[in-house]
């Protein structure tokens, strides 16, 4: 922890099959020193297999994995220094919190005095000094998570691997730990790969997200990029884009929706013709009739407290979902004639 050692990770054409099932199909990516990369996808998309390959528990059939340029493919797991935060924490039940955290240091034969100092430091880092003598069974979920984190970072790993790090926590605790985990990772400057099926977690915790589908990377980009500009139907659906609307792409940045031309959309991989347009509900505003791009009628109103959600039927019988921060003016009522305006820069034309 004294000297953050950031490594660069390269995954080069890694593939792994279990019998006839291809878990990972030729995945290549690089994680820069200090960067957090999230592997996002549903279960069975290969993200866990990839993480286990980095940790050394799974041997890829093809490809190479390099840390700072040197292949670690034949390095056994115990020599890789890739500290993993396991989904169920995997704390040793027969050891105290202190002994759990000290395990990696004992394996590395760190001298006793120095080990004791580093354990204290790690305990303080995750604020569990007062729990040092407890057994894992006597801890709450959040406390176990902290112990697991301390145990992982105390060894000064070259790489931090997070396997659904917050999946076992309840919602409040999860948000609290998200912040803490992010701060800790920043302070330590650890190159990190995390695996999650929760897009919000990926957005909050990572610098870059690789969305995976059936063993391949479907799209890789910054959290905002993935959030605002999904390139495929799969990414749009998986990241929870509410509006997937049939439209017509005219090339460049022009798309036609419900008879109206919208200029300035993102269309990286689409061919002119019939396409699907992906727009998040918060990228649309509801305006009085005549002021927006497309005319429509309010079909449904739902109060969400801080925000309000509308379903607006637009001319062609299509319905778009709109989420707006609640303003001082009263919300539009059911059946009201309105118009909607799309933030064109946040509309994406999906590759067909």
């Amino acid at each position, binding site marked *: 922890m004294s000297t953050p050692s950031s490594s660069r990770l390269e995954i080069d054409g890694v593939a792994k099959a279990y019998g006839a099932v291809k878990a990972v199909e030729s995945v290549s990516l690089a994680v820069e020193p200090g960067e957090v990369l999230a592997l996002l996808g549903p279960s069975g998309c290969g993200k866990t297999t990839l993480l286990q390959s980095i940790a050394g528990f799974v041997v890829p059939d093809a490809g190479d994995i390099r840390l700072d340029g040197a292949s670690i493919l034949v390095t056994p797991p115990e020599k890789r220094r890739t500290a*993993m935060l396991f989904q169920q924490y995997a704390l040793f039940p027969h050891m105290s919190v202190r002994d759990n955290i000290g395990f990696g240091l004992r*394996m590395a034969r760190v001298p006793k005095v120095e080990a004791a100092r580093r354990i204290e430091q790690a305990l303080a880092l995750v604020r569990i000094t007062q729990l040092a003598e407890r057994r894992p069974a006597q801890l709450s979920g959040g406390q176990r998570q902290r112990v697991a984190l301390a145990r992982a970072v105390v060894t000064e790993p070259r790489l931090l691997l997070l396997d659904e790090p917050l999946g076992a926590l309840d919602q409040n605790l999860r948000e609290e730990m998200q912040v803490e985990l992010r701060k800790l990772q920043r302070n330590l400057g650890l190159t990190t790969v995390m695996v999650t099926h929760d897009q919000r977690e990926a957005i909050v915790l990572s610098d870059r997200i690789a969305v995976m589908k059936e063993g391949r990377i479907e799209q890789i980009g910054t959290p905002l990029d993935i959030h605002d500009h999904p390139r495929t139907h799969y990414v749009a659906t998986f990241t929870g884009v509410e509006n997937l609307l049939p439209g017509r792409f005219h090339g460049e940045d022009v798309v036609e929706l419900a008879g109206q031309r919208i200029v300035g959309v993102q269309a990286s991989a689409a061919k002119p013709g019939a396409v699907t347009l992906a727009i998040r509900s918060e990228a649309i505003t509801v305006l009085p009739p005549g002021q927006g791009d497309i005319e429509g009628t309010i079909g449904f109103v739902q109060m969400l407290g801080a925000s309000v959600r509308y379903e607006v039927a637009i001319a062609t019988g299509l319905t778009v979902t709109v989420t707006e921060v609640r303003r001082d003016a009263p919300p539009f009522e059911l059946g009201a004639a309105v118009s909607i305006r799309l933030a064109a820069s946040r509309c994406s034309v999906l590759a067909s």
Partner: protein
Amino acid sequence: MSRATILLMLPALLVLTLFGVVLASFASVSLMVLDPGSAVFHGPPTLANYTRLLGSEGAWRAVLTTLRLSAEITVLCVLFGYPLARVLARSHSRSLRRVILFCLVATFLSGGVTRAYAWLIILGNQGLINQGLRAVGLPRAALINNEFAVVVSVLNFVLPFFVLTLFGALRTIPEQLEHAARNLGASRLRSFVSVTLPLSLPGLAAATSLCFALSLGAFLFPQMLGGGRVHVLATAIYDRIQASYDIPSAAALAVLFFLLVLLMLAVVGGLRRLVAVRFAGEAA
């Protein structure tokens, strides 16, 4: 106690009472005296059988042989059974697991006498092994009517119990813990010694005590494969009845045997509790 509780306990109480009555009548027979030259025994109650037994060199030798053989079998069980149970609990190959399970269950299901004969066929003077030895010009090995034959056959009898008991315990240890140990820099061996082994100790204690208790009581295999030369407690009791119709003396020996087993179970139970507190983090 509600009426339902009492009703539910009734069958168990009946069985326990029956068991108690049998034991008590057994114990009372051990206090009788045999009429010399007949099979008739009578009171008044006396400890004569016990004093005779405690002074008898043969009885003590049987006790020691029984304990020694049981200990040997238990040690062998751990050596052979632990790796087998581990493979069974951890192997990703379903077919391998199936083969092992099938072999274990097949041993379970084939009767004791069948297996004893099988061992006679394998180990006998004209048995498979000796035929093989002769075929390559080696002298005949004495594999039967000795302790070796008894240990091998009893091991075959208790190993499935041991493996299946330990298998159950090993399965409850998440593989992730072993991964965590490796991930933190422990070699395969180190991960086993510091994580898997300590966590499996309660299960290991259960499996070894079961194995030891079964070996203590084994009768058929020592009788059939020991050829009258291996005297364990169970065969000694049998001999007293078969050879001299001395039922009171046999009962006394059986009572002593019973006490011995109780003592062993108490010792093992104590050890188990110690192990559970030390390693599992909570009293089991």
